[in-house]
Every structure is written in C-alpha cells, then in structure tokens.
C-alpha cells in the first residue's frame, strides 16, 4: 500500500513538471490551431539558456526568466517564419514543419554545446520522511515553482486583458476579431508565452536531473500525450492530463515494470479518448 502511495506522490511530482510545458503546448494549439512539435527543441533551448544564466550567477528565478524570454523569442520567430505560413494548407503541414524546426534547435544546441551532459550545481539532499513515505525537498521546491507558474498563467488568462483576448480568440476567432481583438497580436502573444512556458519546463526538468541536446525530445511524447488526454486546447485539461500521465507512468512501474513505461501513456489516452472523444475536459478553450 505504501508502495502505491509513494508511486502516486512520485507521479504527482513528475506530473507537475510536465504540466508547465503541456499548458504551453495546448494553449498554442488553442490559438494557432496546429500541434507544435518544435517544443522538443524549445524545451532543450530553455534548459540550456537557463543553464548558461545560472552559471553566470543569476539565481533560479533570474535563470527561469532568461529561459522564458529566449524560448519565447525563438519560438515566436519560428512560428512566424516557418509554421504559421503553412497553416492555411492545414494543420498537418505546419505540424510537420515544426518537427523539422525541433531538429534544427536540437542541432544548434549540439553545435555549441556538444553532447556532454551538463547539470545545474544544485544541492542534492537525502529525502525527508513522513512515516513510510519519502519526499525530496528539492523536487518539492521544483514542484512548487511549477505550481506557482501554473497559477500565474491561469490568473493571467482569467484576469488580464490580453489573457481574456486569447481565450476569446481561441474560442471564436471571427467573433473576437469583430470585437476588435487583433488576431495577429493574440497569435504572437500565444507563441511567445506558450513557448516561454515550454522553455521554463525544460529548465525545471534540467534543474532536477541533467541536460543534453536530447532533453526536450525525451519529454515530447509525454507533453503531447498530456495535452491530448486533457483535451487539446484546454489549459486545465493539460494540467490534469500531465498529472494523470505522471501518475500512470509511476504506477505502471509497479505493475508492468519500467521497460514499458512509454506505452502506458498511450494506452491511457486510447482508453480515455474512446470514452470521451474530446478529451477529459473537452476542448473548451482554456
């Protein structure tokens, strides 16, 4: 029983880390209407940007800001130059171009940093224990940062003008345009903020383990799975999906062993989508 509970908690921690980039991914889908697979490269870029900033002396908060800014800027650039012009052809050509952009970013990082694994110089502490359950203080801290960011995003979406504009635009682009919300501006905002979140996600991941050019690629499928599970376009759905994927993956280690971990997410999605074809929380924008 404790093993299950422990797996649950482990899953919540990994799910929280997954949630931040998943929100970015799904928000971009809601506004830009194509799945942007370059999040793999952007997450890696964010992780490395944060690494350089942290090594230069900025604290965690400052490095997160740098990761956000660089990832957001690069993501915006790629969207405008490579992806958005293809959306009139359909979501799929744009998605395919985004896969290629992800490869571009991965190799740019590799060009400058090589393949060596690098890590933030963060203290690794023994876990704390409450009864038979153990928590890592460091992972709790990372989780706390992730939760804070999520709350900030939801607050911005709910209360700020641009946030409301994004939701309106995602919900009904024509009506929003009629009301004076400029779709171009909303799209740029969505790209920048969405990719910024992905970059932060990459850095949070790196804080905990290590970073290399393949960091983002390893979590790409999980991000996509989490967003799909919750309902593409729904930010709360992405959070729910991320936690569920995290928990399912950890629990499955107990059941089928770790070697089949990657399959678990997909089976979960197949089951959920067969029962609720629009994802767990439907596809309401945000």
């Amino acid at each position, binding site marked *: 029983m404790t093993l299950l509970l422990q797996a649950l908690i482990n899953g919540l921690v990994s799910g929280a880390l997954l949630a931040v980039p998943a929100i970015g991914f799904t928000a971009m889908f809601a506004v830009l209407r194509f799945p942007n697979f370059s999040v793999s490269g952007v997450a890696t870029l964010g992780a490395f940007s944060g690494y350089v900033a942290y090594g230069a002396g900025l604290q965690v908060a400052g490095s997160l800001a740098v990761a956000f800014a660089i990832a957001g800027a690069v993501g915006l650039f790629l969207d405008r130059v490579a992806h958005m012009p293809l959306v009139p052809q359909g979501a799929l050509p744009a998605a395919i171009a985004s896969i290629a952009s992800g490869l571009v970013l991965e190799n740019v990082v590799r060009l400058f940093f090589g393949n060596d694994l690098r890590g933030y110089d963060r203290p690794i*502490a023994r876990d704390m224990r409450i009864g038979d359950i153990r928590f*890592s203080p460091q992972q709790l801290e990372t989780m706390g940062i992730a939760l804070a960011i999520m709350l900030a995003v939801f607050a911005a979406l709910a209360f700020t003008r641009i946030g409301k504009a994004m939701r309106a635009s995602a919900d009904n682009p024509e009506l929003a345009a009629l009301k004076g919300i400029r779709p171009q501006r909303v799209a740029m905002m969505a790209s920048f903020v969405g990719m910024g979140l992905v970059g932060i996600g990459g850095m949070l991941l790196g804080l905990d383990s290590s970073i290399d050019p393949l960091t983002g690629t390893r979590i790409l499928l999980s991000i996509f799975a989490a967003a799909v599970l919750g309902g593409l376009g729904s930010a709360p759905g992405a959070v729910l999906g991320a936690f569920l994927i995290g928990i399912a993956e950890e629990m499955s280690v107990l059941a089928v*062993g770790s070697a089949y971990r990657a399959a678990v997410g997909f089976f979960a999605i197949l089951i959920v989508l067969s029962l609720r074809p629009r994802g767990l929380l439907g596809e309401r924008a945000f």
Partner: protein
Amino acid sequence: MNRLAIGRRAALLSGVAAVAAPSVLRAQTDSIKIATLTPLTGAGGPYGPAMAKVAAAVVEEVNAAGGVLGRKVQLVSEDDQTNPDAGVRAARKLIDVDKVSAIMGTWASAVTTAVAPLCWESKTFLCTVSGADSITQLPHQGYLIRTQPNTVLQVTRCGEFLTSLGAKKTYTLVPQTPFAQRSIEILGEVTKKAGGTHGSQIYDDKKTTYRTEVDQAMRFGPDAIFCAGYTPDTIVLLKDLYRAGYKGKIIGQAYAINQKLIDQIGQPEVVEGVYTYAPSIAEGSGALERVKRMSGLANPDPYTSQVYDHVNLVLMAMAVAKDASGTAIKDNVRKVAQGSGKTVDNAVDGLKAIAAGEKVDYTGASGPCDFDDKGDILDCKFRYEQVKAGKATLVKVA
C-alpha cells in the same frame, strides 16, 4: 509548371554535384584511408565525439612521424546516429566512396551487428566497442575484433568482486539492452554460488526520474547494487539512490561512472564510495597517459581508450603486412596485439620498431589487447576503483 521543373532539376543537379565533387577534391589516392563510425548524435552522443577526437589525434601523430609504409594516413569520421539504418548507410559510403580499409569505434550493438556483414563481405576490418555477446558469434571470418570485454567476462568479474566485499544480496538495475538479460543471469549465478540472493529490474533509460524503480529495488533490501546502464541514466539513478537514503554498495561500469558523471553530479556525497571497474592496463604502460593527453580528459572513459587502441592496432598491422588492405589487417592484427615481442603502447614507437624489423606486442589503454580467434579479448585482469572525494582511486587489480 516552370517553377517546379526548375526546383526539381536544381535539386537533382545539386545532389549529383555534391556526390561527385568531393571525390575530385580527395584525389590523394596514395594515402591510407581508415575511418571511425561513432555515435555523434542520438542516444550514444555522449560517447562518440571523444572517440573520434582521439582517433584523429593518433593519426596526426603518426603522420607527423612519417606515416605508415611511407604513406600518409587519412581518417574519415562519420556519424552512425546510434541508429542501424543510418549506420549502414554511413558504412556503405565509407566502404564504397572513401574506400577505407578499416572502420573503428562502432558503439551501439545494433549498429555493429548491422554494419558487420557489410564489412566482412567487402573485406573491410571492423573494430568495435559493443558489448553484446552475439556480435562475436557472427560469421565474420576474422574481420572483426572487439576491445570491450563480453558480458560473461565482465559480469562474472563484477560479481566476484562484490562477493569478495561481502555482499550477500545483490541487485541489478539495467536498461533494456542486448546484455541486460545475460547480466542478470550471470550476476545471479555468481551471487548464488557465494551463498547470497539476487534481484533485478529492467528500466526505461529515457526517464528523468527513477524514484519508483529505486523504491522497488530498496524493497529487496540489497547490500550491493550493480548499475549496468550508461552515463545519462546512471546520473539520475545515482541521484535518486542517494535521495532515497540507500547506504549499501554501488558498482558500475567505468564507461558509465566516468569523470563526466562525477563532475556533472557535482556533490561528492552522492558518488562517495561508488565502485567502478574496467579491464586493467598493463603495469608501466603509458598508453592511458597518452589517451588523457590526446583526448583532453583527465579521466577518459574506456570507449575513448578502446578507439585509441583500435587505431594503433590497425596501423601497426598494416606496417607488418606491408599492405594497407582490410585483409592484411585481419591476417596480421594478432601479430602485433599479442605474442612475443617488444612491448609498445603507441603506434609511433611500434611503427619504428616494425620498420627496424623487430616484433612488437601492443598493450593498450583499454587492457592488454590480446584477442581470441572469435575477436573477443582474452581473459585479462580488471581494475577496480572507488570514488573518494570526487576522484576515482584504485582499490585493486585482479
């Protein structure tokens, strides 16, 4: 219609030009061509670059000393992308376009197994660092040697070492690789023979956290854990073992728990006391020092050392044969690798001795480099080290 016709034609023309041009540039038909095929991208990416770099350094030194048989040596380095399909295409190009006599450094077992038939069928010599036992069982007719000890040898020694330290409950944590199953079986046998028990778990090497896997391992209550993965996943595993408060012994391969891992983890307590092991180099051999200098690493991992040995062996075999073909290497590599002769640990000295008519016996940076007729290294001593205060220190050689 015009635009697309131009586009298509341009694409085809540029493709043909690209293929034809470099062969015009590479008109030095008199040089000896050898190649490295290492993972420069993909899952093996952390290892490939250093392997290619050390090979280039050896070739540079040899060329500066006059080359082999009076000819310059030219090294071509390709990327196998840790993927058998990309590896096979790259090998095909090396064999048919660059016309190399030897391909060195293939790392992933699937890549080596895919590339091996191309090599033996085209009489190109293949030197590999892959560990899967099935590789030397292939019908390679002698065109393959491997400097990595096979699974049986490695894991048996690992088990003997652990039981010599008094371990009674050993546990293997290994990702799904060709040697995973065998490693588990062998460590289990060795432990049982010493009166202990053994548990195991196969994990996914792409995860960013192993908390649940570590929980399961700790439930077995092991006093010694064998981490049989590679550097990226071992970094996470060691951190999670530390966080979980595991206080028993840990042992891993030296290619996984290398200096890069120690530096990356940073905090000394996490790796304090961890054991590593690898085949031992001979007493007094300066080979490892040379590898350190050439690779720029204070503690090069065994793969880098192995490729250093590959290049030396290939070039010296050519010198003995007075012939730079793959068949010549195949027929003469054991003449320079083992048997009686002056002990040498680098190609420059070896080539000088061979030119003077002497016999040589190469002992390398990865071990004594003596091969059986299947291409496996013969039984050799292993070097066991323990990480203390962020540095690997010698425990014993046995």
